């Protein structure tokens, strides 16, 4: 399994039967491919529907049924469409159980930066600020480092997407949980050691007494 698949699979295992989940663009969308058999997850797409399904077959795309990235999508039985105020009412109102997003930076306090690099790239926050504040569990799914440089920091340096909202960070190397006491390393990826994770992380890590390895075969 490549590293992105490892991340997506571990994130999928964090979800619960019946959850409503919003997946960000990029790596997070891969999570949908690893939902355990028999688990019923409803995906929310912030552009206006519940019941986001798999990408349609080539040639069967409907340009009026797209996901929040504008990519042709599908709706599963039991889904529905709505306007943007309703969509963000669902998100802000705590009706989304989990949101999975990428990050440019995330820190040990649970701060997240993923929408702006001043002077370089200012795409806008889109729905990310609402999602991170509104979802009950915020899961960051990303490759552990950016060109060898840590992305999990003591303190974010880029403009924040949200303050102290991140709950769990999953990378190919580790699963870390943001707690009142700091960032707890709870699990190791298939090939990582504690020393590897510490070396690739700027944030101070608290090593869980119950540290274990990802159980990807479960």
């Amino acid at each position: 399994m490549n590293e992105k698949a490892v991340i997506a699979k571990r994130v999928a295992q964090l979800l619960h039967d019946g959850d409503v989940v919003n997946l960000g663009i990029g790596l997070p969308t891969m999570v949908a491919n690893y939902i355990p058999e028999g688990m019923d997850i409803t995906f929310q797409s912030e552009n206006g529907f519940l019941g986001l399904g798999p990408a349609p077959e080539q040639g069967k795309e409907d340009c009026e049924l797209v996901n929040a990235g504008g990519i042709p999508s599908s709706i599963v039985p039991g889904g529905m469409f709505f306007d943007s105020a309703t969509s963000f009412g669902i998100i802000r109102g705590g009706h989304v159980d989990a949101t999975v997003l990428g990050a440019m930076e995330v820190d040990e306090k649970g701060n997240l930066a993923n929408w702006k690099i001043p002077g370089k790239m200012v795409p806008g926050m889109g729905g990310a600020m609402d999602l991170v504040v509104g979802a009950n569990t915020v899961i960051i799914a990303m490759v552990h480092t950016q060109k060898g440089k840590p992305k999990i920091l003591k303190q974010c340096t880029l403009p924040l997407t949200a303050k102290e909202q991140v709950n769990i960070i999953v990378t190919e190397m580790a699963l870390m949980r943001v707690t009142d006491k700091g960032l707890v390393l709870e699990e190791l990826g298939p090939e990582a050691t504690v020393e590897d994770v510490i070396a690739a992380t700027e944030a101070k890590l608290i090593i869980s007494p119950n540290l274990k390895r990802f159980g990807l075969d479960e």
Partner: protein
Amino acid sequence: MINKIISINEAIEKVQDNMTIMVGGFLANGSPESLIDALVASNVKNLTLICNDTGFPDKGVGKMVVSKQFKKIIASHVGTNPETANQMNSGTTEVCLTPQGTLAEKIRCGGNGLGGFYTPTGIGTEAEEGKEKKIINGKEYIFEMPLRADVALLKASVVDKKGNMVFNKTTKNFNPIMATAADLVIVEAEKIVEVGEINPEHVMCSGIFVDYIVGGGK
């Protein structure tokens, strides 16, 4: 019954220099492309745009960005249109980035006669800068004001001659809320039907909000 159907040329004459316009659509999905094309061909300029995003250089309101018709843009995301960043960086266009849910709620607020609302979205980020904050039930919120426009340009799939609208799948997005929040509302219809042809249980937005209907929507 008042005839609301006008030609596309009559419609775009309603949009004049220095006006504020709202345009429906999410990454150009559900945008009134015919009205946008006609506005690009017109000489109207110095407009303020309220839209979820700035589409693409060749799709949605992005075409009007390329033809430099906006002095100010209020949107949640501009990353899919490099021309917006160019104009923002060169200082020719002012870009106000707003979280998507806050943008949708500000428009609903403007259309629903409310004076403002408190949202938790953006606390601890640049989105709170210059804004009043308030602690309500122990949680911090940002005060947001209503947003209205001179003209709203919408796209609907089916419109009856009174302006009652049906939006296909994910084309709904900002269209029904913008319908409520502008002094003049023009809807581009893919299909115009007689009053009564749409089941009252399936009308998604009332024709009472609509001043003019333009046929020939794509």
